[in-house]
């Protein structure tokens, strides 16, 4: 049972990986939102409401069948995930599953000082957020991609490839601020909720099935699959705006994140590490422009923050 759960989550993560590969942003949540919208349309267009079978994807039919077959053997203590109003504990449990699987693909960099350093910076930036109560965890993973991940409940991972390109603590704070914003705003979770609620509304999940975690997770998996092709830019822009503010609140130079975006914007479009980014994501220039328009004059007279390059932890290689 545990195995299945993980497999399903891996499906979810594949798109998470794809999306965050595109940038320092974690986008699978927004992508899922598109999937949910698509589903709503399906239902609205008639087929779903009157004939649920038609609205089902093969995966869902399969899931429903499996759930039906295993209905009698559902472990009684396996409680339903409360999609309507998940507790913080449930949020963390979901994020743990996702993050643990990413770690299965790319383990933590074996450098305790590095991990501790990133946790200090991240913790301090997260303190400035509305969810400082979460047990925030930050990690640098062994991957050369330029990439960062966020998962519900306070999990943030940044790739070694991205970390190595940074030159000061304010830039790190900016990136972590962006990821923290995704979690604070529950960007991924909201989309997963929608997907679940839509499924329930469309009669795809009966009461009995909705108590089955496996089915819930199967729905996530298929949703992520579909959504790997499209994404909502707005949550991305929002995370940029909030990331800058969180870093500034923490006393850092507010322009760490823009600096990173500036640099990504100069990356050759033919470089594999950004090919997907430039194809399916708002271009960094676009993100900078949006950020500038949103900031307006609000940063003009900001007290100069710190960049702290001197204490920035540099990797040996």
């Amino acid at each position, binding site marked *: 049972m545990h195995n299945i759960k993980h497999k399903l989550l891996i499906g979810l993560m594949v798109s998470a990986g794809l999306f965050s*590969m595109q940038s320092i942003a974690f986008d699978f949540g927004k992508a899922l939102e598109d999937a949910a919208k698509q589903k709503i349309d399906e239902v609205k267009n008639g087929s779903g409401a009157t004939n649920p079978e038609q609205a089902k994807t093969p995966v869902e039919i399969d899931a429903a069948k499996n759930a039906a077959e295993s209905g009698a053997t559902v472990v009684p203590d396996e409680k339903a995930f409360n999609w309507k109003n998940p507790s913080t504990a449930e949020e963390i449990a979901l994020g743990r599953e996702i993050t643990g699987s990413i770690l299965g693909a790319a383990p933590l960099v074996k450098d305790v000082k590095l991990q501790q350093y990133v946790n200090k910076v991240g913790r*301090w930036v997260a303190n400035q957020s509305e969810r400082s109560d979460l047990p925030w965890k930050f990690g640098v993973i062994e*991957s050369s*991609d330029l990439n960062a991940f966020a998962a519900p409940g306070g999990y943030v991972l940044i790739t070694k490839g991205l970390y190595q390109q940074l*030159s000061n603590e304010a830039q790190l704070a900016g990136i972590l601020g962006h990821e923290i914003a995704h979690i604070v705003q529950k960007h991924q979770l909201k989309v997963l909720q929608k997907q679940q609620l839509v499924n329930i509304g469309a009669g795809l999940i009966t009461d009995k099935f909705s108590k089955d975690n496996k089915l819930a997770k199967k729905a996530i998996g298929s949703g992520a699959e579909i959504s790997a092709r499209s994404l909502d830019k707005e949550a991305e822009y929002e995370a940029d705006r909030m990331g800058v503010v969180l870093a500034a*609140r923490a*006393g850092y130079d507010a322009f760490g994140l823009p600096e990173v975006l500036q640099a990504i914007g100069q990356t050759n479009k033919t*470089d594999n590490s950004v090919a997907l980014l430039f194809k399916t994501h708002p271009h*960094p220039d676009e993100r900078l422009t949006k950020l500038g328009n949103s900031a307006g004059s609000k*940063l003009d007279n900001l007290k100069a923050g710190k960049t702290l390059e001197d204490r920035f932890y540099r990797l040996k290689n």
Partner: protein
Amino acid sequence: MKIDLNKKNYLRALLLISLASPIFGIGGEAGTALKADTLRLTPFADAKSVGSLSKNDAVDILAKKGAWLQVTTQKSAGKKSTGWVRLLSVKRGGVSSSNQVKGLADVASGRAGTGKVVSTTGIRGLSAEELQTAQFNETEMKKLESYTLTPKDGQKFAAAGGLITSPLTYFKGAQ
């Protein structure tokens, strides 16, 4: 420029670091206006206007101060003018940051084809396939969890670095 994600400006970055002002190190770097904006005499929103930038204007970035960059315009006609403009109105790099230009630069610096982080570090990327076959790793997760800090730990760290919080409300989205 200190951050060098694409590794293509490595030599330039080195040069710049050596010439750099301690704050930023971008003196002399090329930039491009992301939108129309006013050039001002001093880095303040109410400072006297000394010119304007149109979208895609090429500029030379001379200095950074807080939210502002000092730039010189490179308009081919008309005279050059120098002034301060909001940092977020300008992106680094020339107007035609096209592949061709970059490609030529790569060839010139002998870095063509080797710019990728993957090939230089020997560390694998994180592909969709790898994620597909990935298994939940409890050991790594436990390790990650072991690094969890309290809000107080964060405060101590901030104090050690002289970081002082600054109240700032989130921005609303703009069109």
